[in-house]
């Protein structure tokens, strides 16, 4: 574990020196700061920031995750010539990209809210859930990026797959969900819908944030099953643990590949 931290530390500092991570942080600072300064209503700002969490973070985590993976592939080879175990290298390597990305999101989004909050009423739970969701989405898609990178030596192929995953989870999945609802309208599908939403990390993080906002009441307005699930702490716990599974599962799969890989 100690070794993993050391590996992470250097990946981390290496990344902090690259322009990308700086640009990424400033991007969030500008957008969130702008939303709060010119948007007026802090709740509206949370909702706009939620769009970033749902669209931009997955894409950036996948793309930066992949390029970082390829960029450091030879470097990993160097580490592996040292007496360090592969799981330690892998975890350190993953944390080395996932944590700086997460940190720049947390700073870029959290800081404007913290500053803005000084003089205005903002719902702390809403902002907190937004930051939590963004953090988890970051970790999920960095893990996916690593898995995709490890499974594909060819960059272009990996890039296409990553874009497919992004489009699939942000748009196509919801489209299919909508089709399912329309087709199965006359059946009691609420339970399956909840289960299906738990399967998609983007839907999950959206629901985690909206539970603090309007979706709870509006869903309750449409059906009692939703209300029973979503209105409760159990619903929140369930959503969060599903997100954690979404981080751990790709990581374990990627680790398996990493341990068996030839460099």
């Amino acid at each position: 574990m100690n070794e993993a931290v050391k590996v992470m530390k250097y990946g981390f500092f290496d990344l902090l020196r690259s322009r990308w991570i700086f640009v990424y942080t400033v991007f969030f600072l500008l957008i969130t700061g702008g939303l709060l300064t010119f948007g007026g209503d802090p709740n509206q700002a949370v909702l706009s920031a939620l769009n970033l969490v749902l669209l931009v973070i997955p894409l950036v985590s996948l793309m930066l995750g992949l390029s970082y993976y390829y960029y450091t592939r030879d470097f990993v080879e160097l580490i592996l010539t040292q007496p360090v175990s592969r799981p330690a290298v892998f975890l350190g390597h993953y944390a080395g990209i996932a944590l700086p990305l997460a940190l720049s999101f947390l700073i870029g989004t959290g800081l404007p809210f913290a500053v803005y909050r000084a003089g205005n009423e903002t719902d702390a739970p809403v902002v907190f859930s937004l930051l939590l969701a963004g953090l988890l989405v970051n970790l999920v898609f960095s893990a996916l990026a690593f898995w995709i990178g490890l499974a594909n030596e060819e960059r272009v192929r990996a890039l296409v797959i990553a874009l497919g995953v992004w489009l699939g989870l942000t748009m196509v999945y919801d489209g299919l969900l909508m089709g399912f609802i329309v087709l199965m309208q006359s059946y009691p599908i609420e339970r399956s819908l909840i289960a299906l939403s738990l399967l998609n990390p983007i839907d999950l993080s959206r629901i985690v944030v909206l539970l603090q906002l309007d979706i709870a009441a509006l869903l309750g307005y449409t059906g009692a099953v939703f209300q029973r699930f979503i209105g409760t702490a159990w619903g929140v716990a369930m959503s969060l643990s599903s997100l954690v599974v979404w981080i751990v599962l790709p990581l374990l799969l990627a680790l398996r590949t990493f341990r068996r890989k030839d460099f």
Partner: protein
Amino acid sequence: MVEVASVEKRFGKLDILRGVDAGFEGGKITAVVGPNASGKTTLMKCILGLVLPDAGEVRVGGESVRRNPKTRAQIGYMPQKAQFPENLRPKELFDWIQDLRGEKSSLTRSLIDYFELEPFLGKPLRVLSGGTRQKVSAVLAFLFDPPVLMLDEPTAGLDPLASSRLKDRMFEERARGKTIILTSHVMSELEEFTDEVKFLLEGKIVFQGSLDEVRQRTGEERLERAIARMMEGGSL
């Protein structure tokens, strides 16, 4: 010191190593030679544990390499083409490797001076020339004074001065009983300092022995010609 037993490795449809048996002893410089794509680098990576053999076993200092990162503490490795975290500086790289291994090296200073790296210590690795990067790589290989040194095409890209310093260093290490494994395309160079040759062809070791034995077998005085003859013959 290093034993390779019936090691097989296949990448997709390509059989790279097809049952390699070889031993590398201390106090000797052993060259692994063979045509391009004969499996030289793969064999070295198997010893390092970077490539996991499909069959067979590699032992370093008596311990199996598989899932045993400790064996790498005994090996200093200089790859064909060194890759580094590009934003780091050589100084930081040396510090980091020591930090990573949790081990301070008393040799850092002398190695830096020996390979004349002082002027480059504060520059990001990405701006350094190929030769300078090779020197950085050499420092890393010697840094922890390991009992085994594996050098993959060590002199490629080095200027004559650095190249001769590296060779001197190898002789010193040999004299101190180190096991030195290297590959090279430059046969004249190998002639200079190789004690033993292992000839790898199509994934198998087809010949191993001292330089004299090579000359005797082939009847050629020059190593380059001797090797060429062996390659033409396919095997002996």
